[in-house]
């Protein structure tokens, strides 16, 4: 921050100063002091090191997918964060990019275009489509624009799913999609996906390279006239127009930039996958990308990347049955540390919960033996503790739905009461959370992770709408 030098050109003095008054956390202030290029360098070094450390295929694919999501999030940040336009059709552009790669590099039409040419074509196609989809923004704004972009998404899905019979012409392969895509060819050298059973880590470097190029390009755009104009547009469209900014073109440009990044990412994504199917481009994917951007902080590129990494790693970890339990309990513990004041009360609440659990377990065991299970002697200590603590009925039946709804009610209740009552309410809430996890959630991780993502989205919005690193809006009345 440039405290002594006064506001930079193009910034209102009062607006610039208001940032100083905001109390930021010690760690965030420390992070602020690290310059942007150093942060990027750190990120690149960390990602580049992973394929060197491990040649585990799964981990490398996760790294690749994380980079894909980072790209998607910084692309969405252009439209939503900088342009202030709610684009719910974003995933359609990602899909268009993927289909572009699939059509140009497979046996679908017998085309095998060079991969870098395909990436260029995707960018152009994406940008043009972005311009087209951005056109309604001239007449519509806010919710109306959101709904029109959602229609565009529906049109895309409809076309992709039924595109195998367009006037007797097979474009997209319909529900079955397009399979057997060519691997990415790097100047004549094909990056075969599995090389002797080991994942080809060059994909990670390829994605990383593209990520850096896009990240830097967008950073430069944001610090140019266009970027400043976008922010003006976001804050107050009418005022921006009065200042002589071509608001209509700025909106189109934001859409085009976002769409181009999404399409490029789509092509890259398709190059690693065996095929492209309409199902991939689901609404779930859209909301996941939104959650990443929101958590990281709308308007901040670093935030978008951070959000993408945190959310994607969180989602992947929840899928792994060995790790998911840890992730769940540690997340709850972190949430407690953030919420409960004074902090030492966390220990009190936890101790009370453990005691409460043993009492409930003893009562439940005394009433009916089938309500509890006991792990065998060869189970590890954590499992033995959980089985002696959490009530796990052999046949939960209706108890599942009741416990689940009860947990939601208790969590919501905890947010409304204060002081001692909150601590008291936390004890059964935590126990019920453990019950719900052990009996319902851990059995179905693929669904659970999205339930948690939805809950996360709402709580981030309510607690901290600006996300971790978001730009705080200054309300001038």
């Amino acid at each position, binding site marked *: 921050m440039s405290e002594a030098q006064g506001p930079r050109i193009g910034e209102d003095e009062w607006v610039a100063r208001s940032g100083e008054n905001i109390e930021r956390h010690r760690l965030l202030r420390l992070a602020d002091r690290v310059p942007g290029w150093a942060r990027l360098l750190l990120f690149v070094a960390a990602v580049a090191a992973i394929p060197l450390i491990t040649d585990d295929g799964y981990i490398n694919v996760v790294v690749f997918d994380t980079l894909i999501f980072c790209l998607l999030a910084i692309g969405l940040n252009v439209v*939503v964060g900088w342009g*202030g336009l*709610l684009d719910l059709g974003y995933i359609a552009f990602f899909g268009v990019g993927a289909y572009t790669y699939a059509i140009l590099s497979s046996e679908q039409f017998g085309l095998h275009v060079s991969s870098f040419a395909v990436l260029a074509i995707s960018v152009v196609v994406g940008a043009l489509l972005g311009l087209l989809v951005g056109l*309604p923004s001239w*007449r*519509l704004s*806010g*919710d*109306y624009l*959101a*709904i*029109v972009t*959602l*229609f*565009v998404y*529906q*049109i895309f*899905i*409809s*076309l992709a*799913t*039924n595109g195998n*019979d*367009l*006037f007797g012409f097979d474009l997209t392969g319909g529900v079955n999609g397009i399979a057997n895509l060519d691997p990415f060819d790097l100047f004549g050298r094909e990056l075969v996906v599995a090389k002797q059973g080991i994942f080809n880590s060059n994909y990670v470097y390829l994605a990383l390279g593209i990520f850096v190029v896009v990240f830097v390009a967008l950073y430069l755009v944001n610090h140019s006239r266009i970027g400043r104009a976008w922010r003006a547009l976001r804050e107050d469209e*009418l005022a921006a127009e009065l200042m002589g900014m071509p608001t209509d073109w700025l909106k189109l440009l934001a859409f085009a930039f976002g769409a181009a990044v999404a399409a490029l990412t789509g092509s890259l994504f398709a190059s690693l996958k065996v095929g492209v199917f309409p199902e991939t481009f689901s*609404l*779930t994917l859209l*909301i996941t990308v*939104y*959650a990443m951007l*929101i958590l990281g902080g*709308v308007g901040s590129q670093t935030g978008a990347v951070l959000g993408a990494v945190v959310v994607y790693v969180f989602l992947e970890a929840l899928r792994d049955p060995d790790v998911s339990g840890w992730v769940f309990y540690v997340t709850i513990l972190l949430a407690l540390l953030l919420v409960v004041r004074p902090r030492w009360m966390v220990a009190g609440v936890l101790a009370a919960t453990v005691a409460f659990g043993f009492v409930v377990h003893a009562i439940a065991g005394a009433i009916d033996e089938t309500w509890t299970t006991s792990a065998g002697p060869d189970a590890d200590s954590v499992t033995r503790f959980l089985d002696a603590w959490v009530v796990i009925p052999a046949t939960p039946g209706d108890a*599942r*739905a009741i416990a*689940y709804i009860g947990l939601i009610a208790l969590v*919501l209740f905890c*947010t409304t009461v204060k002081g001692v009552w909150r601590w008291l309410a936390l004890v059964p809430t935590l126990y019920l959370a453990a019950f719900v996890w052990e009996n*319902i*959630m851990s059995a*179905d991780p693929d*669904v*659970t992770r*999205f*339930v948690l*993502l*939805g*809950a*996360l*989205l*709402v709580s981030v*919005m*309510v607690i901290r*709408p600006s996300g971790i690193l978001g730009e705080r*809006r200054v309300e001038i009345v």
Partner: protein
Amino acid sequence: MDYDKLFQTIVNAATLGSTYALIALGYTIVYGILKLLNFAHGDVFMVGAYVGFGILTLFGGALDPSISIWLVLILMTIAAMVACAVLGVVIERFAYRPLRSAPRIAPLISALGVSFFLSYSVQLLFGAQQRTYDSFNWDGGKLFEPAITIGSFTISWLRVITIVASIVLMLALWYLVSRTRTGKAMRATSIDLDAAAMMGIDIDKVIRFAFVLAGALAGAAGVLFALRTYLVPSMGFTPGLFAFTAAVIGGIGSIPGAMLGGILLGTVEALTVTYVTEWIGIPVGLSNLVIFSLLIVFLLIRPQGILGRPDIKKV
């Protein structure tokens, strides 16, 4: 011209349209007051259908109900309406109220989160598999027997029930909004929230009431819709989207507009599925493409909808 097919299409349109109108009313009531696009409304509708399923199971299921199946249907509808009204109020209290003064995008994203949470929660508890009310077997298939016969053309009981129930609910809503004190407060709030607050209207109460009405209508619509089709956790999305569009087409914030928009959208969908795709020569699966393209064009030409007033921006 095949008149039977045409009549059938019109009846389909009316059935579809009346369900859309019920959901659309929920969007329009909330939007009118809070200026909030409640993305979670479609999932409230889905929860309504599942509550109906729960009541049906409670009374022994479709094949062997412990009381008359028609009584069960009434109980299902009432339970769904109550449950969804409560759900609506809870969502408002915890996901939207803290964001009332936040930028417009914040409650929208919160609504997306609620929508996500609801549909995946239902999937977690009840699984992703399709369920049905088994309405084909109710009372020996009575629902699908013709209620009205005109020449060779018939309307089944199911369609009569759906249309009549929707009309009754809409009349009740019209009465509430235009003839009661609370309704007057709602109308005042939708015109100017701040001014209404200054006149001594309890805004929180009005908003809560709006969510009660919206939820109750969505719950009833959920049961009526599931009678004709089946239940899956994602069933709320498409009808929700269509209904929201219906509300926009009719003029968002306008209650007669939502009803009109619902019927109109039902007609467009039914006509497109039956006729238009055939004329253009594309598969029926692509009917959505035609419908959504038409909707985009409509919104561009007349964003304020049929009965809405254009938004005049004052600085």
